[in-house]
């Protein structure tokens, strides 16, 4: 088998183990390319049957409008259930406090909404599109990653995970985060998207937009960012290499309008994918700390 066939077969196997081992799983869908790939793999795992899980979107309210439009169209085509957890609701209920200041972002707040949504619906497994090549703490995580009653990850107490035997047994209140594309790299995802002709939100491709310079990176200009007179604005030809909130995802200069251009761009890139994510740059252990709190 070609390496993409191998990665695909492994991911399908993992998705079916989730279906077989858990009572009430969910697929966390962000509208990014990795979770879009997961949905495609779920089709391969379960069609012509229905998915044995709903899609769950934790919506910060600061998404790119293109992402939301894509999400809604995809769900309609699929005929599967979508559950949306709103960070705005958590704010309105006083469960979290919105950050203030120039670099305010709702990225950290979504962990609370995620944990609440898991509890409200009683999900015992949440499938996510995280990959081990993204970040050094993620490089350590199991495919079935057990979270305690508080949604926390304990990196020192991970279960041994032998061969392809996945142990998803948990106590009540615990849940498992499942990462079917753990072993894929960024380039693997793009090559797979090309091979399978998977449609993506338009922001992944080069387009002209107004951008604002923040901490040396060009962000999409949006009312969600507090922009003042000192900020430098420009119109540039850009695309987004990773898609999170508009407040924490920086653009890259790009003329890549086709998948082949994007693949070539990534192949020769000297900066990692998460280099454009301000949320990872807070400290050396930023991702590990957030994961311990319950973040994906």
């Amino acid at each position, binding site marked *: 088998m070609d390496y993409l066939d191998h990665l695909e077969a492994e991911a399908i196997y993992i998705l079916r183990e989730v*279906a077989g081992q858990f009572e009430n799983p969910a697929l966390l869908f962000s509208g990014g390319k990795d979770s879009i790939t997961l949905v495609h793999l779920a089709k391969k795992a379960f069609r012509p049957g229905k998915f044995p899980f709903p899609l769950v979107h934790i919506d910060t309210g600061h998404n790119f409008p293109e992402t939301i439009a894509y999400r809604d169209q995809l769900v309609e085509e699929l005929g599967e259930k979508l559950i949306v957890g709103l960070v705005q609701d958590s704010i309105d209920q006083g469960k979290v406090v919105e950050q203030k200041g120039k670099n305010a972002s709702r990225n950290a707040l979504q962990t609370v909404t995620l944990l609440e949504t898991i509890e409200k619906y009683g999900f015992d497994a949440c499938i996510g599109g995280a990959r081990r090549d993204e970040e*050094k703490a993620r490089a350590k995580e199991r495919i079935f990653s057990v979270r305690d009653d508080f949604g926390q990850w304990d990196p020192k107490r991970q279960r041994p995970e032998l061969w*392809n035997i996945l142990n998803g047994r948990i106590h009540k209140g615990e849940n498992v985060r499942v990462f079917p594309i753990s072993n894929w790299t960024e380039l693997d995802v793009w090559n797979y998207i090309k091979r399978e002709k998977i449609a993506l939100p338009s922001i992944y491709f080069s387009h002209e937009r107004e951008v604002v310079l923040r901490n040396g990176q060009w962000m999409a200009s949006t009312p969600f960012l507090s922009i003042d007179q000192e900020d430098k604005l420009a119109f540039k030809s850009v695309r987004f290499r990773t898609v999170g909130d508009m407040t924490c995802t920086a653009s890259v200069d790009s003329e890549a309008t086709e998948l082949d251009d994007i693949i070539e761009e990534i192949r020769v890139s000297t900066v990692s994918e998460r280099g454009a994510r301000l949320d990872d740059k807070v400290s050396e252990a930023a991702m590990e700390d957030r994961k311990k709190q319950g973040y994906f």
Partner: protein
Amino acid sequence: MNLLKFITAGSVDDGKSTLIGRLLYDTNSILDDQLEAIQKANRKNNDGTVDLAILTDGLKAEREQGITIDVAYKYFQTDKRKFIIADAPGHIQYTRNMVTGASNSDLIIILIDARKGVIEQTKRHSFLAKLLSMNKVLVCVNKMDMVDYQENAYLAIQADYLKLAGKLGLTDVDFIPVSALRGDNIVNPSKHMDWYTGDSLLDYLENISLDDKKSQPWRFPVQWVVRPQTDDLPDYRGYAGRVIGDGLQIGEEVLVLPSGVKTTIKAIELNQDSLLQAENGQSVIIHLSDQVDISRGDLLVSANSPAKTSREIDAHICWFDQKPLDTNQAYLLQNHSKVSKIKIQNIHFKYDIHSQEHIIDDSINLNDIGKITLKSAEEIVFDSDSDFPENAQAIVIDPRTNITVGAVWLEQEV
């Protein structure tokens, strides 16, 4: 392009993480922002060069202590091949994490410190390699710079290790003298060891053959039954799973185990396309000619080469839990998608890692490897580890904690 998965093993401070760091660095697989983060972290070697180990030590506790606690997976590719590296911990107390990494690898690289030679962890990891049916072993004799790149030091270790390999029955062993710190024979040939004319590590990894595994009869563990029950497809019933072994094709006679019912393969589906045959490792959906009772946990096998079924099985075990194995307690055994209630009836012996001799003992503690007989509440379907390891592997779960406490290699029915 194909994929090679390998693990690096060896004792603490043998330089495993440094070796991987060097491999990534010299193949230009480290990106600017990652390198910048390493430089910022300011962990330096004694001679002031950047400590490449920090690339894989992804946890705070690891960086604080300068050791590897859990497996880190790293990915890189060259024009010839894609690679997945499992960087495993060297400390004895983290053996279970090393086994986790090794169980999913095609090749094991065992590092030996040129100054220390073959030591206890070398023996333990080699023994585990044999137990995990990792037939390909590459020994990298590291820190050659610390012994003035002397051929004699290398040859002595090679001779020692070959004795060990002979005792264990590891037949496919290769050797490369390296200095991970200096980059000798990692990607570029060493300028200091004219006496060595073999491959550099990267050349070796790029060219090693993966297609020499012996062919096995197919097995199909049922993971999930696809039943749309829609107006269009009222009677559709497909069995979803991942193929192990070769020769699964339409028309093949099938034995459903443990029930023993016979039927034939009517159709094979991959992504709603029909296939005539399915190959090892493919995730497919199978349709059978007859309506038979099959659910998750059942194993479909070729009727021409049935698997074994038994409630009492001799097996090897490697124990991962702080709490010793308890012969009075019920455990769960998971092989493929099947979970069975078991008891460990007998502990026959455990291995002395130094001599591979049997120690007659009725206790199995953390990191011990031994031979046991297990008794199951239901029939377990398996093949013997010595001829078909992919269908002999299982894990032991403690039902009170739900933690995976052991790895099991099923050998034969009692």
